[in-house]
């Protein structure tokens, strides 16, 4: 059987995996491009003709009240939810709607979930090992060996996320904030071109938040990674964002710098006149 499946896997290398792992084509500008996307759940329009463009190396923050469609948008990009209409392109070559989750992930789109999901039965070290960019087919996974190089890389990330001490403990015993960090660490191991980060600082202390902000701004850059952050915490958004997009009822309400957005009357109305400097839930 292992032989058979390896055959099946090898077949795929030629017709499928090669284009998928080839570099993303960003010569024409944006790394992510959503065009007229609509999703309906039982008649409710979660996403309504959404248009969004993320440039290569950009750090973009997306804010919006509950039910604005932020998580659904991420579901669409990562292949979890299929839109009813519209198209989603990664660079100018990859149509994301024609791919499934693992394909999209190996293409270089990493995602951190709103609720931190780490593999609780595995150790922190093992969590990072699994996340690492590697040949993720069956046989290579079965015969994979821990080399010094891999170990160094994992140690490096452990250092970055401050979990070196806990590396051999099960991830299940980590605190909420530590789990968030581990998630970000797993994203780092993946070396994605595009990071989707859903509420990275929920449940974090002020100090932890600062480090997260440093980390995320350090990640983004031309030719490195593009980062999309969905966050409720306005202080945090202000501290990292260059461009902010406001979603409301499944469509883009406003886009621009934090100050522009914050003074937009439509945005203020949506937030019921609340001071955007304060945390909006």
């Amino acid at each position, binding site marked *: 059987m292992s032989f058979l499946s390896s055959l099946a896997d090898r077949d795929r290398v030629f017709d499928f995996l090669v284009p998928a792992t080839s570099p993303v084509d960003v010569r024409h500008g944006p790394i992510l491009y959503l065009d007229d996307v609509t999703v309906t759940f039982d008649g409710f329009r979660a996403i309504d003709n959404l248009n969004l463009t993320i440039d290569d190396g950009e750090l973009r923050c997306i804010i919006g009240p509950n039910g604005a469609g932020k998580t659904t948008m991420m579901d669409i990009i990562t292949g979890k939810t299929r839109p009813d209409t519209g198209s989603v392109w990664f660079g100018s070559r990859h149509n994301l709607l024609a791919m499934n989750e693992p394909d999209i992930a190996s293409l270089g789109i990493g995602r951190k*979930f709103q609720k931190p999901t780490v593999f609780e039965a595995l150790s922190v070290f093992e969590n990072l090992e699994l996340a690492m960019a590697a040949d993720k087919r069956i046989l290579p*996974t079965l015969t994979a060996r821990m080399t010094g190089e891999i170990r160094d890389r994992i140690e490096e990330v452990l250092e970055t996320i401050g979990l070196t001490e806990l590396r051999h403990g099960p991830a299940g015993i980590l605190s909420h904030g530590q789990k968030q960090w581990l998630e970000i660490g797993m994203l780092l191991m993946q070396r994605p071109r595009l990071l989707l980060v859903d509420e990275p600082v929920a449940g974090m202390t002020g100090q932890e938040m600062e480090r997260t902000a440093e980390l995320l701004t350090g990640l983004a850059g031309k030719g490195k990674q593009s980062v999309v952050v969905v966050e409720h915490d306005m202080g945090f958004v202000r501290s990292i964002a260059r461009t902010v997009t406001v979603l409301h009822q499944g469509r883009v309400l406003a886009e621009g710098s934090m100050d522009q957005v914050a003074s937009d009357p439509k945005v203020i109305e949506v937030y019921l006149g609340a001071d955007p400097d304060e945390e909006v839930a």
Partner: protein
Amino acid sequence: MWLTRPFRERSTQLFLGVLLAALAIVTFLNLALPADNPLHVSTYTVTLLGKYLSYALLAVAVDLVWGYLGILSLGHGAFFALGGYAMGMYLMRQIGDRGTYGDPVLPDFMVFLDWDSLPWYWLGFDMPWFAFLMVMLAPGLLALVFGFLAFRSRVTGVYLSIITQAMTFALMLAFFRNEMGFGGNNGLTDFRELLNFDLRSDATRLGLFIATGIALALGYVICRAIVASKLGRVSVATRDAEARTRFLGYRVERFQLFVFVVSAMLAGVAGALYVPQVGIINPSEFSPIFSIEIVLWVALGGRGTLYGAVIGAILVNYAKTVFTGAMPDAWLFALGGLFVLVTVFLPKGIAGLLAYRFKRDRQASRSHDSPKEAAA
């Protein structure tokens, strides 16, 4: 080499040590002691132990998918039975013209049904290498097709359990039909020899017992190697957070399929070793109850440990032998009660208890040690 990795683990060394020692002791007590010695192990008991060991291998196969992949298969009885039937078909062909009707090719039941030639799927089973290959391929192929369909559509959890149960049930109905060509109700029986060894001789029976023990050891090492590899960690990750694993770029359905098929093949081997020892294979092995019972062995022993599955299989089947002999009516009460007690009060099984004791002892000794260290 990933396959040799388990030999460096202490738990595997311990398991193999205990298993091989048990094989050696039983062999010695059977061969070297006279029949009137109280410590003598009769050939009947040896065969019974051999049966338990084949069940243990089956339980290890189930634990591989349930304990590490989170797939509760209620269809492993079917893989076991398919392996058993493949072996049974070989044994039937070995009877040759010594059957009641004396037909050189056709088994008795086919002569009885007035068939004039072997169905195509019986061809080749007179060759042992082909039959032994089919022991693994038949269940493997079923698991491949079934698993491919199920995992591709992301049928997991309870749904998968229910449809594996339906699969077993459908196969049982099918094998009960005489037209299928597997002996219908009565199944395959009246075997005579295996690879020219007389199945009724004491030596063959002891040999089968030892072979089953070695198969169990090999099966354990293979499973352990898978579990200890990165693939094993991907399995555990799949079990605990399937969607997350997918977002890491693993094609979860292929990993599930791979482990499922390996497990089905191990179950087939277990069935093939079981059949010559009990001397019969019939459709009752396909019954959904049997498949759930296997899961109970694993649950009692402690899922996700492999050795727990072995302990559970042997314990439950020993209890079954004792109970059905002494008070047959009480057996189903005991079995039913065991299901409830294990799931409610002993979710980690016996292995969990052992690990707990072990850990507590270690902690106790550590806390005992620490003042000394502090004093030093």
